[in-house]
């Protein structure tokens, strides 16, 4: 099991990133979706959620996806996370095509390469903060192959070293979300997918959580894709992808995105 310091490997991915016209690209994107389409069937009615979304995210990027409710952001995130199979199109995660995988293979890829953070934290209420991390480790690597030093390192990085034995209900919302982030990154995922991570938090805790995510991205090179309605949260990202009606309508720097929105 690599140590906590092996985050430097992830950081190394940054070296391969080339900045071009404000948008970073590389030969090996960590995520690439090509003409991604998703149609839900509600009875006999077809409801298109994605209508050909093409997105490319480089290793080490911090990307915010914004857009109005129902524009397909969550569907996009669930597909990229291997929790949904798209109707058509391609999803490449570090060169592996999700759309050609079986359900079991997608689960395996999710285990190896994806970390999820949800709006509702989604911690196991019966487990302590450390227990939640241990569970993620166990799912990732098996029971007898856990790295206590790394686990405590992640908890320390997220300011949770004195909360390791607290259960979720004994933690504030911000602390719960930080535990959720710690759980998401404990196995060094290629991509951290965050679905409205500050949606249930007050301004102060939102700020703390966003700072932590920024720290993970800047210091450890963690690739982050974050869905948000919060303009301030989007402003923390390197790049903002705007979606509307199932399409990607814009991909720009946060400043440019803010100017367009104004």
């Amino acid at each position, binding site marked *: 099991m690599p140590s906590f310091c092996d985050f430097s490997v992830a950081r190394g991915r940054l070296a391969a990133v080339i900045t071009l016209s404000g948008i970073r690209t590389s030969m090996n994107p960590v995520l690439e979706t090509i003409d991604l389409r998703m149609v839900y069937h509600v009875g006999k009615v077809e409801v298109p959620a994605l209508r050909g979304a093409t997105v490319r995210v480089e290793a080490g990027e911090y990307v915010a996806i914004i857009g109005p409710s129902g524009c397909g952001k969550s569907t996009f995130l669930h597909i990229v996370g291997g*929790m949904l199979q798209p109707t058509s199109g391609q999803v490449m995660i570090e060169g592996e095509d999700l759309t050609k995988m079986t359900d079991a293979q997608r689960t395996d890829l999710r*285990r190896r390469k994806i970390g999820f953070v949800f709006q509702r934290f*989604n911690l196991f209420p*019966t487990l302590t903060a*450390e*227990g939640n991390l241990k569970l993620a480790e166990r*799912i990732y690597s098996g029971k007898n192959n856990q790295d206590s030093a790394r686990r405590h390192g992640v908890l320390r990085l997220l300011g949770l070293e004195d909360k390791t034995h607290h259960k979720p209900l004994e933690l504030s919302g911000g602390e719960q979300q930080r535990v959720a982030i710690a759980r998401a990154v404990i196995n060094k995922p290629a991509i951290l997918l965050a679905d409205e991570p500050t949606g249930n938090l007050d301004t102060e805790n939102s700020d703390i959580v966003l700072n932590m995510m920024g720290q993970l991205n800047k210091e450890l090179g963690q690739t982050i894709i974050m869905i948000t309605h919060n303009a301030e949260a989007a402003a923390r990202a390197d790049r903002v992808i705007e979606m509307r009606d199932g399409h990607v309508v814009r991909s720009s720097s946060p400043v440019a995105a803010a100017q367009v929105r104004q």
Partner: protein
Amino acid sequence: MDSLIAANISQRPLRTAISIVGVALGVVLVSLFVGLAHGMMHDAAGRQSNVDAEVRVFPGGNISLAGNPLMLPEGYADAILHGVQPTAEDPDLKPIPPISGVASTSAVGEYVQGSVAGIGFEMVDGLAYSSFTKTTHLAISSGRELGDGLSPESAQEAIVDHYYAESGKDLEGKPIGVGSKISVLGHEFKIVGIYRPSVLARVKIPLATMQHLLGGAKNCTFVMVKCERPELADQVVAQIKQYYPGLRVIQTNEIPALYSQGLAPVEVFLKVVIGLGVIISVLVILLAMYTTIIERTREIGILKSLGASKRFIVMTIEKEAAMISVMGVVLGYGAAVIGKFVLEANTRLMIDLELKWFVIAALIGVFGGIIGAIYPAMRAANLDPVEAISYD
């Protein structure tokens, strides 16, 4: 708490307790019923094997616990010992010689009555004390010998073995001793003696009284035959079969095996009990785990978002079910042991809690639980991750 399984079990204590009790019920059912059947059988067979008389003579046909128990003329006891000679009343009677090698015989009546304690049944012997003690060793440890039942004074008296005296209560609810009154065949009997060792039925009354009460005049259930030497038993059996071909003749050492054969219907009943034990364990765990899966739908969604495979989810639920089942088995063992002592202290039932059946009961409890959890586990594993994680 860092273990998801342990946390889930402790988080819902009532559900866990009900599940454990359900599994324990199956274990108790199997352990106690099997223990009871085998205990009673072993006890009865053991008391049969304490009989010194090597040969037993029954009426023709199968041994049955049902019907009139006094079907064999008691005159066979005398005929086997002394032979048959024409008499003035029956001058055409074909003479039969005494069976050689026979030392003594005794006619015994045997009746099954409902237990005075209200649970189970107990046997009562009717015997002629003087001839009975010539065929098997019996010592009065307290009180006196049993009368012949021919006089009004001796007709309503009984002797009981030491176990009966130590474990039972008389009609007034007092400990049994010499002079106590007990109910036999619906009548009040006075205990005049306590004997050792336990031989045949624990309660013995005069054969004449039993004949009178059951309307089987001069009949008995079987005749005990004591040989001059144990090695003569085969020869005695052969002779009795030769001269009295209508009778069923067996050696005493065959009795325990015959008990086992006679208890074949009980074995069928035990299989039904075992089946019920399995069904209870399966249903209890199935319902408990199914309910818990619905309650934990979102948690299963979280597991899926973390990349937990179907196998991981199935194994998590199965381990939880197995853990609950093991606790149920342990509780079931405890309850069975307590039940044995309570029953044996308050009734004359004998319960053998055999290791083999403890193991079988444990397997039934644990595997029943595991089987019961399969459907809920599979259902959980096949939940749609997006729907599961959005579940409220």
